[in-house]
């Protein structure tokens, strides 16, 4: 009917499409990125983590040793001692 007032809720000021995009898309996305960075950064800094029971895909490494390719051709040493362990 003509002259009748509209009822219901609404914004006091109209928002432009750019404001809607900023407040409801960009801001939540920025928060999502920030929280993700806060969660993942420590593990990135610490480096890869070994998980017992899962496969090991890393390249063999011999720290404090010699060339690994040459070691494959070396004659095994039978003298000495040592121990074995599992976890």
């Amino acid at each position, binding site marked *: 009917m003509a002259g009748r007032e509209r009822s219901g809720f609404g914004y006091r000021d109209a928002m432009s499409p750019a404001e809607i995009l900023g407040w409801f898309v960009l801001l939540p996305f920025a928060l999502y990125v920030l929280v993700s960075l806060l969660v993942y950064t420590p593990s990135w800094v610490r480096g890869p983590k070994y998980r017992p029971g899962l496969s090991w895909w890393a*390249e*063999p490494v011999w720290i404090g040793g010699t060339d690994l390719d040459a070691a494959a051709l070396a004659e095994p040493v039978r003298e000495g001692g040592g121990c074995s362990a599992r976890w």
Partner: protein
Amino acid sequence: MPAGEAFSAGQVDAIERAISHARAESDLTYSVFVGAPDGDLREQGRQLLGALGGDADHSVVVVIDPAHRRLEILTGATAARYLDDRATALGAMSMTSSFAAGDLAGGIVAGLHTLSEHARHPRTLHSGLAE
């Protein structure tokens, strides 16, 4: 675990420092192999020890297979005099307790520390002199 390096640069640095500290403390040479070799891990360790050539007698090689959760510690003939099998078992125990918690680098550092503590001995003077 993604394909690539086993340890970060910081972890490698910590292990290298532990190796040089262990060497300075016990006068033995330490090295750590981490990989997933096929076959007998002990045989692999003996081969690594052999690859050290003249240093093999004074060396301790730690072979870690994270895929199968196996560990071998091998000592050369002279190193075994200062680091008997019981002492290597203690070193292995301190390593495996960290490995089980997922801390490979920390376990290696702790194990090397334990090994070098038990292998500590007075420096032999005049050993190279003729009788």
